[in-house]
């Protein structure tokens, strides 16, 4: 278990016979109570393919059912069922040609982090940029790791100023910001947008307005009931 932010932890899982995954995919987690009662939710995979452990980063939803157990109760050695990997569309593979633009809102960073890590691990030469929107610096997942990629990571904070060492803004995502981050639509990047529904709706709308082909804009949305 690794504490990422006041609301999120990364669980490092030892999964027997894990078949491997592509960056961007998720898993279904099923918890079983002593009396047989079960509950299932989906969580994005944070780790890159090819690593021995499977990592899930889980944000606690206060009135959720599964995330409070995963973030507050679970201890090393505990067991639960896991199914996957799931989802074959919101994925990036190092064999894909062309630049990559990742746009994350809050904990929507998780599947995009798997892409960033895979890009790094494979030594991909693809031009990759990440724009992360968060409320405050303390909400930013993987902060120290992201600092190592500061050349390609852009941070916008909606409730405070980002520290001066970051490429950053203090406002909601807009067209100028996406233009500054690049790569532009004329470079035909593969675009991946993940975050809460209003964020994804707005980011995808702006990207299409800027000339990106709708078919190149992959989206993954989650709402408060994702818990």
């Amino acid at each position, binding site marked *: 278990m690794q504490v990422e932010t006041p609301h999120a932890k990364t669980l490092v899982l030892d999964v027997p016979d894990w078949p491997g995954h592509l960056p961007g995919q998720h898993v279904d987690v099923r918890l079983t109570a002593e009396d047989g009662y079960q*509950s299932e939710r989906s969580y994005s995979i944070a780790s890159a393919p090819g690593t021995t452990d499977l990592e899930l980063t889980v944000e606690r939803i206060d009135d959720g059912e599964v995330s409070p157990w995963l973030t507050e109760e679970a*201890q090393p050695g505990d067991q639960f069922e896991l199914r996957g990997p799931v989802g074959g569309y919101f994925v990036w593979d190092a064999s894909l040609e062309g630049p990559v633009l990742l746009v994350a809102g809050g904990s929507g960073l998780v599947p995009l982090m798997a892409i960033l890590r895979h890009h790094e691990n494979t030594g991909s030469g693809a031009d990759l940029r990440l724009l992360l929107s968060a409320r405050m610096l303390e909400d930013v997942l993987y902060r120290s790791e992201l600092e190592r990629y500061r050349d390609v990571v852009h941070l916008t904070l909606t409730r405070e100023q980002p520290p001066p060492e970051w490429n950053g803004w203090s406002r909601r995502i807009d067209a100028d910001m996406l233009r500054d981050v690049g790569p532009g639509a004329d470079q035909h990047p593969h675009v991946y947008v993940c975050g809460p529904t209003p964020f994804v709706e707005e980011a995808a709308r702006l990207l299409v307005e800027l000339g990106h082909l*709708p078919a190149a804009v992959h*989206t993954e949305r989650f709402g408060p009931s*994702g818990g």
Partner: protein
Amino acid sequence: MPPISRGFRGRRQTEVDPSRLPPGQYATNDFPVLSAGPTPHTPLDEWSFTLGGAVGEAKSWTWEEFVAMPSEVVTRDIHCVTKWSKFDTEWRGVPVDRLLEGTEPWGKYMVAWCDGGYTTNLPLADVVDGKAWVAYEYAGEPLDPEHGGPARLLVPHLYFWKSAKWVRGINLAEQDEPGFWESYGYHNYGDPWKEQRYWSD
């Protein structure tokens, strides 16, 4: 036997009628949004709906013609493959039966195609006899683009990805061809009561 997750009790939804909740689902009052790409915004004066394929001569309706057809208001439970279910959702739409009136389809399958390039496949038997609609109102209001407006397919007895958003036409086919999500790991049929979520189910 599944492993017990030590200390897990869950938040049991005692107010939920278990006979209405398919396996692995939980009830929500929200209406979460899930789509693979940007939300398309087709102006109504450019919108049309086309019935084609193995059905003889294609039929097409403008938006005005479409909403002028006799419609039905139906209240149904819906079940998303991402595990939420929402009870008693109210829709207005044109029954697919009505669109098929006067045709003699010879294909046993259909594909719904949509703005944004999304498709989904269904057996024809699952959209006739009062089982499916092309819906354009939700809870008495025009259907929000996020939720598939101006119109979406409504096939409430299957997982909700089969209720394709932004639907623009139905093509009947003699062969069953997987649609968009069905090509990316999701079940070809998608019966929530049999928990047919993924290819291996």
